[in-house]
């Protein structure tokens, strides 16, 4: 239950350690941290270049994952799906 332990640290107002900060990145990006927890997280970032780099890397990971373009259908698959559609149409009539 480490993650939840990290959260409770935040709620008790102590400083955030790097090991805790990396567990909060997704909650931070998703906007689900409380306002106080968000402030403490950002205060940690402002004094920690490594965690700032880590957050940038998580953002980059999301960006690069989102750039994967779907591969084109092969002509054979396209023909199969056209056929599937025609069969469905004919069962409609």
């Amino acid at each position, binding site marked *: *239950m*480490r*993650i939840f332990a990290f959260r409770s640290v935040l709620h008790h107002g102590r400083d955030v*350690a*790097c*090991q*805790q900060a*990396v*567990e909060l*990145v*997704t*909650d931070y990006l*998703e906007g*689900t941290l409380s306002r106080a927890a968000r402030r403490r997280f950002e205060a940690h970032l402002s004094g920690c270049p*490594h*965690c700032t*780099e*880590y957050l*940038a*890397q*998580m953002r*980059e*990971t*999301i960006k*690069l*994952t*989102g*750039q*994967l*373009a*779907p*591969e*084109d*259908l092969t002509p054979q*698959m*396209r023909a199969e*799906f*056209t056929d*599937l*559609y*025609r069969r*469905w*149409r004919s069962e409609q009539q």
Partner: protein
Amino acid sequence: MDSDAELVHRLRSGDEHAFTGLVERYHQPMLALAASFVPNLAVAEEVVQDTWLAVLRGLDGFEGRSSLKTWVFRILVNRARTTGTREQRSVPVADPEPAVDPARFDGAGGWADPPEHWIEAAEGRVEAGKLAHRVRAWIDELPARQREVVLLRDVEGMSSEEVCTVLSLTEGNQRVLLHRGRSRLRQLFEDEFREAR
């Protein structure tokens, strides 16, 4: 891009191109998602084919309460689950799994082995088109539940609400799975460029 209502109308009135266009957009992510639930790719392909037929047959019942995409993926996941032999959601999400290897921190929880820079190197490889197949392979190797969330959220760009609907997850569990999946991928990027050096 067509609105869902327009697309449904075209599908129902015999527009083959509307259908192949839809298949073109969603086939690959559907196949990747189905493969997460069933024993092999051949079965995943069958599930996807069955799903498309179910989508066509169910068009009259599509009420537009969710997006067409969410509706299609939900049909897919239901079929894949019925077909799949995977243990029924037995792994508890609450099991701890740190985002970063604890050995990289000192006793006070500060970085002992801080993250290495790789963003610029990765950007270069993306532009050269060399990284995409590696990233796909990394996603394929994620634990199934993390993979499903990452595929829908980060590859397909669905909202967290849509992902929860498609995969029948709570917001909290969705976020934990997303966090672990993204954290693993970040580590894999770092490893990739550390080795390349």
